[in-house]
């Protein structure tokens, strides 16, 4: 059973690649594994994690503090104060019968623990190819994704499940939290694709291919690919597999955004080779001096996007 599920997971990856072939009318069953909720809960067997401490792997070590007991000062000015003092001395003896109950830290960091095992405690991402970096992406983008997962517009069962019964205000707080994180970007990846492939990637990302209706990624995602406020994500720190899987998901409708869904249009124009090239080149980029998204309205976008007020 487990082996079968793992095979299905691999199937998903292959489908992500296959899904980007030129034939856009390829039957949907090729990617049915994407939509199969059985997939990817078994993506990584524990052995892969070596020491298998999921939270340790993310550098997560929750600091749990006991509530400290306020120190009491007694002023021995009268008999009354003496009695108060004596009673205060006795108090811990009596309450010592029942140990104080710890309470969870009242912080967003503690609240975001469920995200940390896949996305890292600061949203920096993990070694897994398919769990993206969240840190520093514009809050509006992150919020849109959280809502899309909650209502099922973006389809990934583990996320759909986690967010199903959380109110808008909490999703906004989550988005703000990860948008404000600035963990360092990972070092530029050493890619295995050919020089020609990298050159194609650079050309598409920086200039686009107007003849094929492909705009430059930089036109919306920013000259340093750090995204634009309020809702266009940065493209740095993402694994090539994640980028290619997302472009495939757009093409096959398991990921969509508010109309007009500009990324669906762009993804529809890309070939499998284009996607490999774009994803590979983006992963080789060094961290920019300023990792913040560019301010709202900085770029005259080549396409209208429903998520980004223009």
């Amino acid at each position: 059973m487990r082996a079968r599920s793992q095979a299905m997971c691999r199937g998903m990856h292959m489908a992500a690649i296959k899904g980007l072939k030129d034939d856009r009318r390829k039957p949907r069953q090729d990617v049915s594994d994407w939509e199969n909720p059985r997939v990817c809960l078994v993506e990584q067997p524990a052995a892969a994690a070596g020491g298998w401490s999921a939270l340790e792997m993310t550098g997560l070590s929750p600091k749990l503090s006991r509530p400290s007991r306020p120190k009491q000062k007694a002023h021995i000015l009268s008999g009354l104060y003496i009695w108060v003092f004596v009673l205060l001395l006795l108090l811990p003896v009596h309450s010592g019968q029942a140990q104080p109950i710890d309470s969870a830290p009242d912080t967003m960091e503690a609240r975001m623990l469920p995200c940390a095992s896949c996305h890292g405690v600061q949203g920096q991402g993990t070694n897994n190819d398919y769990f993206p970096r969240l840190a520093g992406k514009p809050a509006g983008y992150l919020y849109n994704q959280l809502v899309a997962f909650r209502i099922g517009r973006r389809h990934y069962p583990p996320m759909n499940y986690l967010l199903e019964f959380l109110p808008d205000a909490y999703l906004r707080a989550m988005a703000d939290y990860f948008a404000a994180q600035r963990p360092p970007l990972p070092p530029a990846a050493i890619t295995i694709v050919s020089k020609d492939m990298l050159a194609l990637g650079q050309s598409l990302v920086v200039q686009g291919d107007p003849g094929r209706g492909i705009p430059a990624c930089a036109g919306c995602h920013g000259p340093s690919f750090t995204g634009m406020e309020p809702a266009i994500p940065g493209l740095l720190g993402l694994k090539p597999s994640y980028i290619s899987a997302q472009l495939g998901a757009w093409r096959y409708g398991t990921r969509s955004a508010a109309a007009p869904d500009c990324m669906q249009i762009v993804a529809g124009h890309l070939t499998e080779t284009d996607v490999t090239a774009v994803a590979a080149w983006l992963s080789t980029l060094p961290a920019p001096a300023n990792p913040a998204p560019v301010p709202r309205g900085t770029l005259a976008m080549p396409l209208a996007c429903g998520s980004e007020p223009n």
Partner: protein
Amino acid sequence: MRRSPPFTVFKRACYLVLTLIVCSAERGLAQPAASNAAIIEQGEYLARAGDCIACHTAPGGKLFAGGRPMPTPFGTLYSSNITPSPDTGIGKWSADAFYATMHTGRLPDGGLLYPAMPFGAYTKVTRADSDAIFFYLRSVAPVEAANKPHDLRFPYNNRSLILGWRTLFFTEGEYKPDAMKSTEWNRGAYLVQGLGHCAMCHSAINALGGSSESKAFQGGLIPMQHWYAPSLTSNKEAGLGDWSLADISDYLRSGVSHRGAVYGPMAEVVYNSLQYMTDGDTLAMSVYLKSLAEGSPPDPPASTVPGAESSLLMSLGKTVYDAQCASCHGAQGRGMTPQYPPLAGNQSIQMESAVNPIRMVLNGGYPPGTAANPMPHGMPPFAQFLSDDQVAAVVTYIRLAWGNRGTAVSAGQANELRSALLN
């Protein structure tokens, strides 16, 4: 200054006339007037108590426009449009027709409702409450959306089969208060048995898709969802006999308590319905639910996992627990309540079915975000990081450590639940 008697009589007469006008407007079932605002508000409250929205609103869809797919062992049902749209909703219905449908499970045209609509519970709702819900539904925005035909396999697509089901499992009739019990208890019983339709999940569903009244609230695996809805009558499951009323109320209203947190399908119920109940109604339900718990049932059957394997699981389980779980749930399983529930002494961990603890380890989850707990703490999913053996080990450990009286679980059980539907 005391007013003269003739003025008082005149005023009373005016009130009488006004009352008659209001009453006749209600009886005439005209469009709800402004004077009916209070009834509409009450209807909204009762519609929340009945959790109508959970089925009659699709995720991300328009309020009460239906179309939500509901997978069942017999095929997929689609909920109906209950907005006041005349052609596609219930805009042409009368309050009589609405009550009759809620009460009898028969549509105005004589058609039989599938029992996914909990008319077996709603039949207990009073006429006044049914009317209030009807007026509220009449007040929401009409949505033009035709009902989607159900997609049921043969022979379940034959609606006349419902007649047989009704004979076996349906008893028509409004709630009859128990004169021996308090008003509060009766109010709780009315809400739990009626609009709350708690028995829909918390009773075992048999092969015919029915549950017998004698086994109401005794727990069962929810078909398709692969969550176990624990018994509300056994203190070894979700029986609340030894919970304080405050803890029960907190659990129902906020989604967390010092005894346990809401998870799985119950999260939906708290999110859409229970968090909106008044303090009085929450307490009434708590009083009734606490009274449902009976004496101690027999111990669960011995584990099918051999003793030697169980010892190995315990030893591996402690290693996993200390590394992964203890930082929140505590080395002694005491939790950090109410955010992180205690595992020691937690019925939900020890009960005969290990489905829920296994799924919590695999899938994690957040309790619902509620007015009383708007930003809940949650639990990470571990499916990606723990092997079947590790999941079985840690679940075995929490079911047996600290004096817990559960049974060991096998890697096979853990593996089976990896493929359970998530939402």
